[in-house]
């Protein structure tokens, strides 16, 4: 049995039989991968509490059966445990993990996506929570998967949108639409020129600047209204973490 090593972030963990766990990870070199950790619920040495969601770990594994790898050992690289000291951070972090789990294919590696995930978990863990984080993550994530929304030109007629004019956002057309075309984009919702510019900036900036970027209340409100729905439109179904987020934040 050939043992290999890789680094990954735990996206999801589910009980399997009496003492095993099925772990879904997003790894640097394999992309999304699921594996069985035999005896992990009882093991105090091989896995030592390292298989919780958000954990950034180094695993020793072998190829298993039925597409599952077999986890042999897990060492902690970064536990990101400060995330679970703030319920809003848990909710936003869970949203990031669920997006990656639901929208990426098995064993399709994407190093930039891996770095995006680790960067945003680090931000949640190390700095005060900012409402800008989920918006930047959504946009950058969609971009990396090939779903980058069109924000500077009309998604129907391809005309450049006047920089200060308000426009409409169409989920079906994958981006902004101009005033002339919005009659052909049923269900499109109004979006300000200010939000379009802010989102374009979020897509183009260096990731290291994510902690510094600030949106106005209008941009935050419109972004929160539009982009989680756009993510779910592209996925074709609702995300569980968003439903729980609404229930908790409404309390």
């Amino acid at each position: 049995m050939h043992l290999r090593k890789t680094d990954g972030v735990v996206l999801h963990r589910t009980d399997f039989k009496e003492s095993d766990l099925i772990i879904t990870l997003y790894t640097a070199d394999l992309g999304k991968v699921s594996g069985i950790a035999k005896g992990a619920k009882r093991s105090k040495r091989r896995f030592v509490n390292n298989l919780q969601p958000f954990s950034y770990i180094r695993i020793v594994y072998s190829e298993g059966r039925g597409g599952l790898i077999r986890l042999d050992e897990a060492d902690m690289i970064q536990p990101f445990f400060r995330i679970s000291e703030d319920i809003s951070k848990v909710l936003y972090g869970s949203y990031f993990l669920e997006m990656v789990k639901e929208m990426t294919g098995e064993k399709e590696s994407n190093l930039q996506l891996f770095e995006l995930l680790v960067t945003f978990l680090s931000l949640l863990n190390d700095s005060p929570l900012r409402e800008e984080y989920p918006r930047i993550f959504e946009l950058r994530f969609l971009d990396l998967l090939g779903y980058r929304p069109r924000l500077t030109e009309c998604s129907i007629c391809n005309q450049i949108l006047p920089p200060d004019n308000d426009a409409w956002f169409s989920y079906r057309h994958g981006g902004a639409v101009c005033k002339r075309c919005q009659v052909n984009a049923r269900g499109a919702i109004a979006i300000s020129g200010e939000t379009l510019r802010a989102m374009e900036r979020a897509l183009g900036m260096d990731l290291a600047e994510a902690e510094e970027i600030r949106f106005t209340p209008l941009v935050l409100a419109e972004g929160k209204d539009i982009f989680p729905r756009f993510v779910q439109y592209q996925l074709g179904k609702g995300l569980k973490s968003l439903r729980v987020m609404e229930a908790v934040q409404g309390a």
Partner: protein
Amino acid sequence: MSTYTPTVEDLIDKLATLPGVGKKTAARLALHILRSSQDEAQALARSILRVKERVGLCQICFNIAEGDQCVICRNSQRDRSVLCVVEDPNDLISVEATGVFKGLYHVLHGAIAPLDGVGPQELKIAELLERLERDKVVEVIIATNPTVEGDATALYLAKVIKPLGIMVTRIAQGVPAGGDIEYVDSRTMSRSLEGRKEV
């Protein structure tokens, strides 16, 4: 091809659905039942049926109960001003086994798990809040698991209970008694250091 009769095979299949019971153990249990007397087999079947007929959840704390209330809620000697909140009835049994806690319990039947779509509405949290508004509780001890889900549940409960003017505490976390520091993970170790006590 099966070497058992269809009836025995059916019993093995049913027993194998029990937690911790694989096909081989199920076959051993089935053969044991086959060898036991008619009275013993009927007693076992009656016990299974009686559990399903008579045992439900306590109307107050949602622990396992026969009748409307569990034995703990019925006990007039318990301190009614302190509630210990746990995820599952098994956790209640662990706390109760210490003999240290003399208050009452509230069983949530799970924990907030955003990745599995489990929110506050899926748990017995509304019932807990009703209870706190109705009864004279001065402290709620949160004994959820030290996992991401257990932490999220504790934070949520603190957020909704503190405005009621009730003290909210959480059980301590750290190195287990009789444990080995060498094998303690960094998350547990940092919480142990943060929760240290003067000796």
